[in-house]
């Protein structure tokens, strides 16, 4: 049984048998992969904490016939501040679901791995989880090749930087104007400050994002647009989105 070691983050886990857990890891070197952690649900198991959702560590796996088997693990970070803050945990769970649902198995993308890890570290610090989530959504879509067009109309190419009336079309993947034709059915009105914040978020590094101040109304506008954009690209809604919404309403 060949053994390999990889840096990975736990995206999902489910109980299996009496004491085992099946985990979905997102690894830097191998992409998304499934593994079985034997005895992970026993109180004294060295795998218990390492197979918690969002745990980040070095995982040693033995190649199995169907699932690889976890043989050793060294936890690097378990994000204690995320775990003890309801809003942060809800947002971080959503990020894990997004990566799990939108990526194929064994299709490595170190950029996305680094993005997820740095986003979790940002969330661990005293930052607004909603703003951090928007940064992740935008940069994640960009990394997948779905970068939204935010400076011009997608149909006629007219610059939208001075336009007062802006619309975002999830199906077209960016801004559209009403000068060159009727608006697509899914067009969502969006304000100039929201578009500018999206442009900044999509290219900002961690430090810049921490310093960005975005008014709550703008955040909720971008969040609405991204929700529809991701739903269009993923062809489904993320289940954890519902809980996030219920927290906002409550």
């Amino acid at each position, binding site marked *: 049984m060949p053994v390999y070691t990889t840096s990975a983050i736990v995206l*999902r886990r489910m109980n*299996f*048998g*009496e004491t085992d857990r099946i985990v979905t890891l997102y690894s830097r070197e191998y992409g998304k992969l499934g593994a079985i952690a034997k005895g992970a649900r026993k*109180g*004294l198991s*060295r795998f218990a*904490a*390492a197979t*918690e*959702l*969002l*745990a980040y560590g070095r995982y040693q796996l033995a190649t199995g016939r169907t699932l690889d088997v976890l043989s050793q693990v060294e*936890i690097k*970070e*378990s*994000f*204690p501040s995320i*775990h*003890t*803050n*309801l809003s942060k*945990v*809800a947002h971080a*769970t*959503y990020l*894990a*679901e997004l990566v*799990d649902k939108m990526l194929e198995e064994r299709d490595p993308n170190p950029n996305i791995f680094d993005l997820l890890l740095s986003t979790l570290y940002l969330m661990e610090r005293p930052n607004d989880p909603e703003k951090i989530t928007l940064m992740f959504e935008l940069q994640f879509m960009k990394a997948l090749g779905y970068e939204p067009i935010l400076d011009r109309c997608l149909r006629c190419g007219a610059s939208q930087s001075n336009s007062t009336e802006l619309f975002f079309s999830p199906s077209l993947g960016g801004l559209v104007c009403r000068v060159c034709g009727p608006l697509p059915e899914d067009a969502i009105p969006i304000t100039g400050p929201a578009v500018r914040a999206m442009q900044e978020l999509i290219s900002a590094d961690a430090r810049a994002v921490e310093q960005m101040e975005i008014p709550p109304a703008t955040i909720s506008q971008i969040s609405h647009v991204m929700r529809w954009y991701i739903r269009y690209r993923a062809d489904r809604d993320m*289940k*954890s989105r*519902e*809980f*996030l919404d*219920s927290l906002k309403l*409550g």
Partner: protein
Amino acid sequence: MHYARPLAKLVGALERLPGIGPKSAQRLAFHLLHISEDETRSLIEAITEVKEKITQCKVCYNFAEADICNICSSPKREKDTICVVAEPRDIIAIEKTNEFRGTYHVLQGVISPMDGIGPDMLRIRELMARITGGGIKEIILATNPTIEGDTTAMYLAGILKPLGVKVTRIAHGMPVGGDMDYADQATLIRALEWRREI
């Protein structure tokens, strides 16, 4: 398959049980084939009786033989303290300690956003009703220290505290017989945070 038809049917039925794979199902089926008629009858009776007689306690939602379970109806239990657990099997684990004298409330699951399980799908409304009914001093949140268990506890604390009741969470830290070397950062942080003088 290679089994005779009734045997194949039994193997198929056993395979549907949690944690039972094809090999275990086959082993169990062959065992059942060899047991005496009395043993077979008592097994069938036990299953039928459970299905017929076990219901849910109308107060705490634990499994019960009557409308109200033994714990909720016992005069010896302290009714002003409710220990909130996810599943009935958690009650059994706590009862084995012989340490807790209060009552329970079974949520019948935990909030699991990724699986689409939200607060509305748990027995939270019923818990709120018990508290607003009066006479409750303390709510102990005894969900697992997993991300779902913690999420559920934090959510409950947020909605229960405004009701003016004391809300506590079971302690987390080093397990008895554990090894510091294998403990993760979150466990050690909590163990240090919640340390106490000896």
